[in-house]
């Protein structure tokens, strides 16, 4: 049928290296999510605040993160910062780009869930003698994370898929980078990328399933 012989055996030799790459991919995604969540909470609070000085930069971050391609954000970190003499390695610029993106998207999610928490709760916490930070940490945050949990895990899947963009700035240790490396050496494009696709699919599914299980375990009354 095709004038082409599939060489799966040859492609399978790359599998161990690709699985190592998958670990790097997961590592980048997890670090970017952790830092992204911290920034996102700060951004969400800043966007809800009354001070313009806090609101304006936070809004700008969120707008830029949501309205430009993720690839553009990674390019900004990798090539753009070079203008100021800051030369980041592919790993760091990929991480910075994804973290920026994650923080922007998650800030909107968190802002939505902050809205869903009645303001009377914060006031009653304050009237019970809690300080503002204590009230936010002990009363608002747990509820916020509960509402935002599933959207956050979606963002985690997005982060994993986004790590594949690192190859455009020369990243060669994550799953996509390793695959591209093998591809460059062997020209077995279809075979290698098909394997990579399967691995990405399995990771994404595992994260989704794990999150559902965790949500079921954590959030039952």
């Amino acid at each position, binding site marked *: 049928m095709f004038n082409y012989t599939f060489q799966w055996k040859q492609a399978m030799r790359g599998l161990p290296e690709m699985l190592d790459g998958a670990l790097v991919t997961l590592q980048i995604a997890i670090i970017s999510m952790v830092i992204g969540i911290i920034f996102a909470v700060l951004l969400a609070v800043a966007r809800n605040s009354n001070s313009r000085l806090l609101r304006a930069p936070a809004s700008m971050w969120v707008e830029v993160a949501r309205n430009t*391609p993720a*690839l553009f954000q990674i*390019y900004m970190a990798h090539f*753009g910062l070079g203008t100021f003499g800051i030369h980041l390695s592919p790993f760091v610029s990929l991480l910075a780009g994804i973290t920026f993106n994650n923080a922007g998207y998650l800030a909107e999610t968190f802002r939505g869930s902050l809205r869903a928490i009645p303001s009377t709760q914060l006031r009653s916490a304050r009237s019970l003698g809690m300080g503002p930070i204590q009230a936010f940490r002990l009363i608002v945050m747990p509820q916020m994370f509960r509402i935002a949990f599933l959207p956050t895990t979606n963002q985690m*899947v997005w982060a994993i*898929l986004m790590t*594949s963009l690192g190859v455009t700035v020369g990243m060669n240790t994550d799953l996509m980078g390793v695959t591209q490396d093998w591809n460059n050496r062997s020209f077995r494009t279809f075979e290698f*990328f098909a394997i990579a696709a399967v691995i*990405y699919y399995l990771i994404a599914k595992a994260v989704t399933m794990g999150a559902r299980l965790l949500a079921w375990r954590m959030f039952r009354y």
Partner: protein
Amino acid sequence: MFETGLTLNDLKFMGQGALITLQVTAFAVIGGTLLGLLFGIIRSQVNPWLTLPLVFLLDIFRSVPLIIQLVLANAFQAIVGLGLSAFTTSCIVLALYTSAYCTEIVRGAISAVPVVTRRAARSLGMTWGQDMRQIVFPMALRVGLPSWIGLTLGVMKDSALVGFIGVFELLKQSQTLITRLQEPMFILIVAGAIYFLLSFPIARLGGQLEKRWREND
């Protein structure tokens, strides 16, 4: 003073890229929406067990990085010997990618129409097609449109990836200019501004429509 080597010709060069971005987005969104409508109606009307293969297939488009989908499709069309251009390949891949998300939007919108309303329509003597066109469609449109506009904007942003298989869209053109002029920050800001200019009117239009329709509810 601020100086730059970016000339009017270079801006035109980027404009050409923006045009390609728009074309890819338009083809992908039109094709993806038609497919999404079809799949969405199938998913909401047919027994869930029968649509399991379709669900699985569409799930793949959402769980594999787009860049890998593009590379795979490009390699595959070369293997089969279709001789498609990179532009056509990207349009097809993006259309399928869009349809996967659009299916969920359509399904959600259709299931938001109360069953009793549809039964009432059928008991008034409307056929299934009439019910779909005149009752479900107008009601579902109001539910689904905001997410559909979000999807369109998302596809425009994701179309930046087609540069990887050699389509000269906006970001790829900007990269060419960066290599030549060595002014990455400025050129990227211009590219970002163009993306913003392209997506902002669509987002605004969506917001307007949403507001107008809410008044009529």
